[in-house]
């Protein structure tokens, strides 16, 4: 890169920091390494420490408070009908872009929702409705957590006007710390320690208050965020 960036600038900046901090030459960063290894937690947020049935209630209440809609769905097989119902109810187009996730693409779309046109893949400019899975739901704040990957194109979360998200009850966690724990667990088993390119925490539909502080939904991302909460055994 240009003069002044890259290696010389790196040494210059780190050197300036060390001089300002009066850093000992022998300090190799043991304190930083300890924090990175131990990862101390902050104050515990009590409201999110609940038994499972109340956790579900808290999640629904928090999600609705940020203008999500939530439908309780009995089983994955009932999802196509629940999707079709929602689209019909809100007079939305019947063409659906679904995340290329077998758990979604293998659902009985043809039998249960014959009027829907279902295509899998990333979002294109003309798509107006998307359906994705999710990695977790954080009950503390009604937040959805979605990961990028072959089964989760990030464009589906932002380009269409309406975003439908499938969340299983067993994916609910209380405070955000439990979401970090699940994420680290997943990385340990199948990603060699790295996070996916994108981790999205989504709390309600897109909004702006940039015009006289009046909150408007659908600024650039989805105007509607509909959560299909599927009952299952806590996993």
């Amino acid at each position: 890169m240009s003069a002044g960036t890259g290696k010389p600038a790196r040494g210059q900046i780190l050197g300036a920091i060390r001089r300002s901090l009066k850093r000992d030459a022998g300090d190799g960063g043991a304190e930083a390494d300890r924090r990175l290894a131990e990862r101390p937690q902050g104050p515990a947020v009590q409201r999110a420490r609940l038994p499972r049935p109340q956790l579900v209630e808290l999640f629904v209440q928090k999600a609705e408070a940020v203008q999500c809609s939530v439908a309780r769905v009995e089983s994955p097989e009932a999802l196509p009908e629940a999707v079709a119902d929602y689209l019909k109810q809100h007079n939305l187009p019947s063409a659906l872009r679904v995340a290329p996730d077998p758990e979604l693409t293998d659902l009985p779309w043809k039998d249960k929702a014959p009027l829907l046109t279902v295509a899998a893949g990333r979002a294109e400019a003309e798509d107006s409705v998307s359906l994705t899975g999710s990695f977790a739901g954080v009950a503390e704040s009604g937040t959805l957590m979605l990961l990028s990957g072959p089964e989760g194109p990030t464009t589906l979360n932002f380009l269409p006007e309406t975003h439908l998200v499938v969340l299983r009850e067993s994916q609910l966690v209380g405070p955000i710390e439990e979401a970090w724990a699940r994420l680290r667990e997943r990385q340990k088993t199948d990603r060699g320690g790295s996070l996916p390119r994108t981790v999205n925490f989504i709390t309600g539909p897109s909004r702006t208050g940039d015009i006289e502080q009046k909150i408007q939904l659908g600024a650039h991302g989805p105007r509607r965020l509909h959560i299909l909460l599927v009952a299952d055994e806590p996993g």
Partner: protein
Amino acid sequence: MQATSRNFKDNAHEALADPNLQKAMGFVRTGFIEKRKAAADALPEFEALRDSARDIKNHTLANLDHYLERYESKATENGAQVHWCATAEDARQTVLEICRSVGARTATKGKSMIAEEIGLNDFLEKNEIEPIETDLGEYIIQLRKEPPSHIIAPAVHVTQDQVEADFRSHHKHLKPDRPLAEPQQLVAEAREMLRQKYLDADVGITGANFLIAETGTSVIVTNEGNGDLTQILPKVHIVIASIEKVIPTLDDLGVILRVLARSATGQEMSSYTTLSTGPRRPEDPDGPEQYHVVILDNGRSSMLGTEYQEMLRCIRCGACMNHCPVYHAVGGHSYGWVYVGPMGAVLTPSLIGVDQAGHLPNASTFCGRCESVCPVRIPLPKMMRHWREREFERNLNPPAQRWGIRAWAFLARRPGLYRAVTGLQVRALGLLGRRRGRFASLPLAGGWTRHRDFPAPQGRTFQQRWAERRRESGRSAA
């Protein structure tokens, strides 16, 4: 951005006389304050979380060199290209070279205060790359060719009617008689205007609220979703972040997120908190092919180890300005540079020099509301006092003011003389003003009496009355 902080006084006079600005600032005085209070009151752990957030930032700053190195090594491991830039000029050049390396003609931008700090838009334009602001507030001020007036709500000084007029004059290809009286119609029009730009852009530029050392991740916190569209659609994503953005772990992020949104907008979580780690993986269906992180110093490393180090804890929530009576009165543009309100009054002199920005730390009533709401408990009034001392030491304030301060200091060091002089002054003013009870004009007090009467003293000084009261309470206790 060219600083006009030297003209603070003139800027402020103009701002006070601007009816549109005063109308727009009315919404700040109420909305932000009530929402923050409701959100803070609803979380019993809020004060403990503020302490924790302060401690996390203090620990990180004390180990900043180590955390930056660990962040860099993790980020690089995941395919990020990290660029270190000591100055604004280095950062501008670096961004330009990345843009040129892919033959970029347009770059979409998420909201970034660092981009404002380094004057990126003007620079890209001069080099024939069109920067497109996508945050609604930034889009509005880009049309108006204005700098932001608030760090999280850049167009907070603009009224709805002004936005409508701007859209009508810039979006000429749309029907002139289209309805635009509702905020929702304005939002929908901006959405429509920017849609294709996201898809066509070659480069997307965002800031970063945080860099996480544990995972080599950059984080943006937004509500509109524009930052996400900016960073997932083009083939190149550039993040610009200053050195103090790094924090140690994901758990630390959780603590800080809980105080950030509540302090900023009164939300529990902003709509979108997005963690980016490296470019798209080979098997990913979308996302950028290149991911660059520009790490900027621009004067911050020399704040470490000084009385201004604590300012580097700032997480840019805007609560200090939302609660500042001076900011409410004069708006952000009066401050004359990128950072405004109390945090600007402390940070601006650090970054562009107290000779340029000496007025800003003086534009405070020291009411202390900024410190009382700061999520990371930055002692802003104390630091403004430090700047006033520096300004005085360096002979930067005007002679009349220096003479006044000297005279006062002379008296204040001689309590007997102080009592005699103030006692005389109060008695004299009390006698002179006893008929009307107030003065319409007084020598050396024109700044006060131009706007309101000065009440006549009742004949005794504060110290005299205080002493009397002590004596009386002593008698009644006995």
